[in-house]
């Protein structure tokens, strides 16, 4: 297993290099201009100077390798200097076009919020989805199953930018229960501020959780259904085990194998779903950073955030594969 993991990790390096090159090519080939959003009162000569000072006019390949060097050489050095007090010589750090500040600092500043909102919503989604999936399968075609299927279809097919705005309209504008705009300066320091934090997280979290739960509950249901008809289930029942033991121990454990991998595989795509939700509720996470960077033609930021997403996807694919082997003794990679 270990050699397999190492092999996969090594293979990931050329994959990621290729992905980042393709992303860079796509960004640079698309007509984007960091000065596009400036007022027209700024004359073209000045715009050209701005682009020059950003290094926007350098040849494509030069820009790509500069970016790569900054990501894998300069930034780790900065990190080492900060963490261990080493004194490496640092060249030009990777600078965002929009903010003229280091891109990695922006990302580090925004990761906690994304993890909080996305993480919580994922946990909540799984917690909702698994029981619904189990009951739906066990009582197939019951009223509960039908309602579960209906809600899952809604959650699956209605985009988060719609449910998000709908929730704002209902809970913020009409009822006034929750704030419509996420207060990113809020600090949790006591009970009441914690309550406020919960209040402002409910809507974005639930919107994403609904979306996640819809998907996972369907997987859970079908996986349970597959197992419920298996011979070993009949054997377990014949042995005189209680229904509870049969379903929650025998069937559930076996059904979880594909679901766990789906949960792991889907995790990076949740960051993608968070792009829009973060924008709707104005949570200052990675997704919002990416959208603003795309709008602002901020190539280094777009590139770095997208590559981080790519890394996450490759990594979680590996985790899913390894988990599969861990959970299912029939599967061996070596």
């Amino acid at each position, binding site marked *: 297993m270990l050699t397999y993991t190492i092999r996969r990790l090594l293979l990931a390096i050329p994959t990621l290099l290729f992905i980042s090159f393709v992303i860079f090519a796509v960004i640079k080939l698309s007509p984007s201009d960091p000065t596009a959003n400036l007022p*027209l009162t700024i004359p073209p000569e000045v715009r050209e100077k701005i682009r020059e000072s950003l290094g926007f006019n350098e040849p494509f390949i030069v820009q790509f390798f500069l970016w790569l060097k900054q990501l894998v050489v300069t930034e780790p050095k900065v990190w080492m200097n900060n963490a261990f007090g080493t004194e490496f010589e640092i060249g030009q750090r990777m600078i965002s076009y*929009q903010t003229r500040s280091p891109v990695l600092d922006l990302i580090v500043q925004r990761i906690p919020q994304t993890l909080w909102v996305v993480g919580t919503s994922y946990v909540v989604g799984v917690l909702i989805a698994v029981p619904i999936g189990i009951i739906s399968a066990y009582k197939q075609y019951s009223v509960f199953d039908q309602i579960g299927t209906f809600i899952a279809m809604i959650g699956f097919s209605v985009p988060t930018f719609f449910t998000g705005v709908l929730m704002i309209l209902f809970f913020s*504008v009409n009822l006034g229960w929750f704030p419509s705009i996420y207060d990113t300066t809020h600090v949790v320091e006591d009970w009441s501020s914690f309550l406020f934090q919960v209040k402002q997280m409910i809507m974005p979290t639930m919107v994403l959780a609904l979306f996640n739960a819809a998907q996972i509950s369907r997987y859970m249901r079908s996986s349970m259904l597959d197992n419920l008809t298996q011979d070993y289930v009949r054997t377990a029942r014949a042995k005189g085990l209680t229904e509870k033991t049969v379903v929650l121990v025998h069937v559930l454990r076996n059904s979880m194998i594909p679901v766990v991998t789906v949960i792991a595989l889907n995790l990076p795509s949740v960051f993608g779903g968070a792009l829009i939700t973060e924008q709707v509720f104005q949570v200052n996470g990675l997704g919002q950073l990416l959208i603003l960077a795309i709008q602002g033609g901020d190539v280094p930021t777009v590139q770095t955030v997208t590559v981080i997403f790519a890394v996450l996807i490759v990594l979680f694919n590996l985790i899913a594969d390894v988990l599969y082997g861990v959970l299912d003794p029939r599967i061996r990679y070596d």
Partner: protein
Amino acid sequence: MSKLKTLLLATAASAVALTGAFAQERGRDGEVKIIYWQAPSILNPYLSGGTKDIESASMVVEPLARFNQDGELVPYLVDSIPTLENGGITADNKTVTWKITDGIKWSDGTPFTSADVAFTAEYCRHPEGGCAQSAKFDGIDKIETPDPLTVIIKYSEPKYVPYSAFVGGQSPIIQKAQFQECLGAKAPECTDANFGPIGTGPFVVTSFKPNDVITMKANENYREAGKPAFATVTFKGGGSAEASGRAVMETGEFDYGWNLQLAPSVIQEMAKGGKGTPISAFGTLIERIEMNMTDPSPSLPEGERATAKHPHPILSDEKVRRALSMAIDRPLLVEIGYGQAGRPACNLVNAPIAYKSDNTGCLVQDIEGAKKLLDEAGWAPGGDGIREKDGKKLKLSYQTSTNAVRQDFQAIIKQNWKDIGVDTELRNLSGSVFFGGDPASPDTFQKFYADVEMYANNFDGTDPEQYLTQYTCDKAPRPETGWQGENINRYCSAEYDKLAVELGRTGDPAKRQALAKKMNDMLTKDSMTIVPLVDRGRVSAHANSLGGVVLNTWDSELWNVADWHRKK
């Protein structure tokens, strides 16, 4: 009895005076929350140029003088505005002297001096800095600082309206001590300074999260006692105009929402929420249709397409352009797109009033007149209702940026033009592509690979010279200039070029105004090269409890934030 009465009155009066004094304490009104749906990325306006960045920074850093809501100059950090009359400007119009008010301090307590002013120019004029406002300092030969309170700006050529450097929100003074290590290529390395400039304004940055939120507190060293009324500011950025409008007028979460570009019916509906009020004001922003004077046909080779080599086959005819303008129902456009924040317009320079030409001919739609003009031009109605000439259909491509109001406009104008027998093909492009200067992209507004296009433009300050001189022949975007240039239409007239030069050499205000009007007329009502549609105002909204807001389109919207207070 009367003595008692006097006594009582005196007590009452002193009580009033006391509460009055109490009310004048700095920071008495707690927190004010401002929302901009575009999030500030940086607080150094010289490195950004974006409106959101300039306006958020305007609460912290200030220019020597600002424009007020009527477009008049108001001294901020100086005793008075230099003019020819008070001797601040020399008779040859080459030297301008600003006298800094004594006693002004930076928020860190150090004195504000002429060295800071001179440094600001040095910072922005550095060739490697990529300063977004360097055009404000054009023509400056050198800046002298004979004493800490005197700034003498020497221009190499006579400068008749020298109110661009250090004037208005785009050109504030930054502190030399903070930025002196950040010149040129080093500018982006000074992240702390760029995110938290030290200023002379009413507020001081306490934290800055780029593209998200700024928190500020009252500047203890602010020059006016008892101001600002608010102790802290939360300046939130991002989301959409709709979300900001909702947060101010419906849920009451924010006190001030900037630039609510929404359909008038949406704003009215929001205002019914009762928590806030929309406010509007007009400036120089004109939504217009630009006619392409060159042939954008894809059959022409790249490098010749849309250049002066090939005049436009249809739009070169002035009668056709005029007919297109006459057919447009401007009042309807205003009603649908802007409501109280728009007025039909026929001028490119529609404000300030002194520069506004008496041009109202386009305000009333004239379908019959337009048809007659097209007949005269030889475009006869065809079988399908579309006019033809020499077997060629009168068909135009019409592009603009993607934006709900603009697409409504396109639909209405397409209908208007259909009524006179002109077929229109509509196209819209993402703003970041359309307004981006990428010379490799065929879809930029400069390249103008379409017959007509629509967008809005304005000018900074109150003098239209630079704005009008954009339409000289040499400013046309073309392959040789990397498709850069402001003369989008490729308008070219020797007489206009001559007037542009003359405007640059004229100091007398009355003559300048006459020249500007003449140039405006040449572009609009005389030649119909530019077809103005709507004079676009600004709509913002403030909470009903927020006092002191004066919407200003000539400078930063937050220009008088020091006067904002909570209504009791």
